[in-house]
């Protein structure tokens, strides 16, 4: 294995979290390298935030007013915002982290504007609207100013641990196939969500849950893994646009409607008029609408493509004009292409797709994991939002990135550089090259299909014990099959099947931890809905579930509550959602 020159801090991932972490690590004086799987300033979910039409970055209304951005909500305060985020996470969020989120948000917005980010307008009472790509552009401008080096097309595979602390990481250069060890005193994981473990996901192909898996394997812990937000209305068919969240955006703006195969609307079947209004008109729509869509899809009213239809009224002409007036971007680019479908008298099929991962690497308020030298930022971490993300994940990645980079740099200042032993590196290399030494085994392509069949069957919006138990059993079989995998081509140069293997090797760990967590939380809370336990139980389950190792070790932990505590009640799921919403300011 090649060894690169050593660094103080290696940042894994170049979405908003990774780039922001790199900036603060470098500003703290550390020698930094960014390892990016894709293009340095055009990858990750950050690029797709708000479908790259209008992503929100959140902060309290008072601060927006003070920054001269909004007049709307000047009576708001950080404390009110803090309380709302705690309630909305169904009391599982780490309140020390939420405090940092609320306190730091205005500074993170201000600096992005200093670095040249264009603000398009406001989004709701606590947010500004920007292009996802504009966030990346302004961060990358700062990265260049600081002269931070980076490598692209490079897949992080493992953390290297010596004497109980991080000593760097290993990566594969996809174009050459070379495996490299990068010595570092600290590593910041910013690999984003675990979209790739699902067939139906709204993310880019680079986000496969590799960070959390590698962290767990190296001795760190994961938290809240059962919590996954689904985007309720993502295109399932036509296939060309599968994964696009445009119907969700249009629906949130107020346009269009969902109908089943009989042409009937159905939200009223599952929600009272009051909750229905909440589901359709507020930020809570992700959770509630996903619940409703999945219920309808699981019934005989599901359409032939396995979803429900999203239709748009384009006549009379006035309606069409209203739509294009509100969403001018629909006239061009890929959205113009999607709109052609509606103009030709057809519509699209939608279903809830895996969208945002609340859980991930367990970190404290300094973004440090339990493994010395390991830090995390953004969606690959867990703990901030608890059981439901209602506020902006963009703010999360910026706030966490800033803290993680500074913490990692401070840690590196005092740490002795660890160097991995040849024996350890050989072991890691052997694991990565395993499918090249095997013949006649299953292909990683088919094994990936199996993983996605498993997650689709048991980790969808509506979960049951029986399906989760079956899922865990199949994950066990899949892990075993992965040990026998072999490849059709023997080259290491841009070998997609090998990449599938590398991603799968981590994907089975992340998926396994998620299914395990979902099977142990025998209640419904936030985005985790158990059809066989349709209540939220604050008596028994007001706890975070921590996954402690790859062998199925877990621990329940008291949540970090500094200010907001719920009643110790047990209530039916939907009425409890209503009750919590009532508490919001």
């Amino acid at each position, binding site marked *: 294995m090649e060894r690169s020159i050593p660094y103080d801090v290696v940042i894994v991932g170049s979405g908003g979290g990774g780039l922001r972490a790199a900036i603060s690590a470098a500003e703290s004086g550390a020698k930094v390298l960014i390892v990016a799987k*894709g293009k340095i300033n*055009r990858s990750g979910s950050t*690029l797709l935030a708000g479908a790259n039409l209008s992503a929100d970055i959140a902060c309290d209304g008072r601060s927006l007013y003070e920054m001269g951005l909004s007049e709307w909500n000047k009576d708001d305060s950080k404390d009110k915002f803090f309380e709302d985020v705690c309630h909305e996470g169904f009391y599982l969020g780490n309140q020390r982290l939420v405090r940092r989120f609320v306190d730091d948000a205005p500074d993170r917005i201000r600096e992005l504007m200093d670095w040249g980010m264009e603000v398009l307008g406001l989004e709701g009472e606590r947010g500004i609207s920007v292009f996802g790509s504009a966030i990346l552009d302004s961060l990358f401008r700062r990265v260049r100013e600081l002269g931070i080096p980076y490598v692209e097309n490079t897949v992080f595979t493992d953390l290297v641990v010596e004497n109980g602390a991080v000593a760097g990481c290993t990566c594969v250069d996809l174009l050459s196939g070379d495996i490299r060890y990068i010595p570092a005193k600290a590593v910041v994981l910013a690999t984003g969500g675990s979209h790739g473990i699902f067939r139906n996901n709204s993310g*880019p*192909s680079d986000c496969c849950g590799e960070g959390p898996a590698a962290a767990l394997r190296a001795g760190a812990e994961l938290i809240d893994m059962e919590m996954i937000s689904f985007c309720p209305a993502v295109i399932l068919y*036509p296939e060309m646009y599968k*994964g696009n969240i445009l119907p969700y955006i249009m629906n949130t703006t107020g346009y269009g409607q969902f109908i089943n195969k009989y042409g009937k609307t159905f939200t009223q079947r599952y929600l009272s008029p009051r909750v229905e209004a909440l589901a359709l008109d507020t930020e809570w729509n992700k959770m509630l609408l996903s619940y409703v869509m999945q219920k309808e899809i699981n019934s005989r009213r599901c359409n032939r493509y396995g979803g429900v239809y999203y239709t748009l009224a384009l006549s009379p002409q006035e309606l069409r004009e209203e739509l294009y007036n509100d969403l001018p971007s629909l006239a061009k680019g890929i959205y113009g292409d999607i709109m052609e*479908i509606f103009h030709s008298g057809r519509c699209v099929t939608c279903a809830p797709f895996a969208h945002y991962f609340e859980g991930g690497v367990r970190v404290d308020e300094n973004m440090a994991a339990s493994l010395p030298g390991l830090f995390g930022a953004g969606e690959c971490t867990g703990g901030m939002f608890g059981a439901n993300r209602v506020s902006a994940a963009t703010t999360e990645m910026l706030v966490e990135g800033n803290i993680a980079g500074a913490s990692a740099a401070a840690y590196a200042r005092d740490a002795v550089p660890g160097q991995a032993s040849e024996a350890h590196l050989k072991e890691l290399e052997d694991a990565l090259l395993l499918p090249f030494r095997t013949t006649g085994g299953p292909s990683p392509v088919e094994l990936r299909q199996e993983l996605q069949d498993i997650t689709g069957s048991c980790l969808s919006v509506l979960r049951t014990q029986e399906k989760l138990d079956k899922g865990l059993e199949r994950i066990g079989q899949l892990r075993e099959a992965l040990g026998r995998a072999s490849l059709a081509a023997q080259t290491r140069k841009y070998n997609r099947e090998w990449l599938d293997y590398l991603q799968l090797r981590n994907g089975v760990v992340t998926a396994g931890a998620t299914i395990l967590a979902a099977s142990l939380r025998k209640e419904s809370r936030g985005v985790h809905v158990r059809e066989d336990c349709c209540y939220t139980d604050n008596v028994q389950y007001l706890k975070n579930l921590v996954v402690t190792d790859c062998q199925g070790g877990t621990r329940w932990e008291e949540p970090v509550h500094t200010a907001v505590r719920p009643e110790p009640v047990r209530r039916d799921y939907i009425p409890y959602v209503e009750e919590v919403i009532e508490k919001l300011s």
Partner: protein
Amino acid sequence: MREIAVKILREAETGRGHYQTYTVEVDDHAVVSVMTLLEKIYTTQDHTLAFFSHAACRQAACGKCMVKVNGAVKLACKEKVTGDQITLEPYSPKVVRDLLCEN
């Protein structure tokens, strides 16, 4: 069902480039992109095919999935396939493998 003949220039990086043709079946009404076809070929017919796929936004946002479609450079994820025949080639002379180029 509609049959699409997909002719792909492979292994140009070795100096011994050659065309290989795959037949892909899609629904009559299906709206498919060049990327849909490449994914279908990779998953169901030929696991050795190389094309940009490791950090793909699939929504015409990253600009990294460029490929020459019937002689013109296009984004694979945005390019709709209408006919029953299509030729795909690497978009630049700096080929890494098959349709994937360095840039």
